[in-house]
């Protein structure tokens, strides 16, 4: 995908305004890599609105590479195996720390994926923060619940997850990264990106 001269120019302007987030582009449909005919032919379903970033740092005004919009889109789509992103907006983000700083592209858009692939459960963005600076705060994280990906708000606890799943009053037990979480600690146990959560209950058995 060619992002064009306008995008490049906007980036230069945005880079002059340190510490800000500047919208630099909106794209109708983005498809960063070619996909197989099989995939392209299968029906696409929405995986919700998602977010991704691509970041490079600079030192004393000298950039070490430039962030790539394609990469940011790829990062946004990866967790839900998306192949298309629509209504994409691109922001240029510039956290600055004295002589050192980052330049990032942050994309948001609706990700479409072939039917049958994994499902995003909430309709807001789940950023994959790749090579991202401290100045960038994700708004949500992705955890694996019983081996299925699930997006929760950044800072969400086990109690929030259990409530969101409608399992509050049930007799269940929860493990995070293979350690049992006592029920009394649900509210104090924050979920981090990539946590493996196991939720069990009782079923008929002999």
């Amino acid at each position: 995908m060619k992002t064009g001269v306008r995008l490049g120019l906007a980036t230069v302007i945005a880079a002059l305004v340190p510490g800000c987030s500047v919208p630099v582009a909106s794209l109708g449909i983005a498809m960063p890599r070619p996909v197989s005919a099989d995939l392209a032919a299968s029906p696409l379903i929405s995986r919700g609105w998602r977010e991704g970033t691509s970041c490079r740092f600079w030192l004393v005004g000298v950039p070490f590479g430039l962030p790539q919009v394609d990469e940011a889109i790829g990062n946004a789509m990866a967790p839900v195996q998306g192949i298309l992103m629509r209504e994409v907006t691109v922001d240029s983000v510039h956290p600055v720390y004295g002589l050192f700083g980052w330049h990032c592209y942050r994309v948001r858009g609706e990700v479409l994926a072939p039917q049958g692939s994994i499902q995003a459960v909430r309709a807001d963005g789940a950023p994959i923060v790749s090579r991202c600076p401290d100045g960038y705060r994700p708004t949500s994280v992705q955890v694996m619940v019983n081996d299925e990906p699930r997006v929760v708000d950044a800072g969400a606890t086990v109690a929030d997850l259990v409530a969101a799943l409608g399992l509050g009053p049930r007799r269940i037990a929860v493990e995070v990264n293979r350690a049992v979480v006592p029920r009394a600690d649900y509210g104090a146990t924050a979920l981090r990106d990539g946590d493996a959560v196991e939720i069990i209950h009782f079923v008929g058995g002999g």
Partner: protein
Amino acid sequence: MPDELSDPFVLAGREYRSRLIIGTGKYPSFADTRRAAEASGAEIITVAVRRVNITDPGKENLLDHLPPARFTILPNTAGCYTAEDAIRTCRLAREAGVGTLVKLEVIGDEKTLFPDVAATIEAAKVLVKEGFQVLPYITDDPVACKRLEEIGCAAVMPLAAPIGSGLGIRNPFNLRIIIEHARVPVIVDAGVGTASHAAEALELGCDAVLMNTAIAGAKDAMLMAEAMRLAVDAGRKAYLAGRIPAKLYATASSPLDGLIR
């Protein structure tokens, strides 16, 4: 005369009237499970520990129909092939809030579902240390049962025959040896097919019987549940009554004196 109240089944410090423990698997609905549990008179029921289906958690839950206030819930570790998995399952089960009683099974072979004795002993050691009251499913091996008792298991549960096979007690002599030496309850677990098998286990002196398929798989599960309740009662009473020794030849029941000449 021994009745249900004067002859309680004591397990892990608790008294039960029923000596029948039933599994809750293979029933078409929770309501059917409940009806079978009622008909069997069981006070202890086994359940399995499984993942919640998070995309469709469902409205109903097994324990809504079999409330822990009414039944003692005995979570099992069915499907575990390593000590580690079994231990993890027990820890989760305890956290789900049904107590510390667990049915430990570590399977060693897919086809026979026979237990892995070494792994069962290994898991039992860890679980007993962690405060669980462990009921291990084990082969009808007197030495393995002894080891498990020494570790501190709350009972031993030798199998009668492979799980779900319905073959009945394959080795009554081993069971007798196990019963003679055990100082913890002996519960026959697995392999019972019909009421006579359950009666036989109790007649041999087993403290209780655990079964699932024999009831759930019967054409009329409710009727079989009732049959099992009666068989377990009959077997226990016969054991307490003390049977006559088996003899090869006849002994006349009617007096020989006063015969018409």
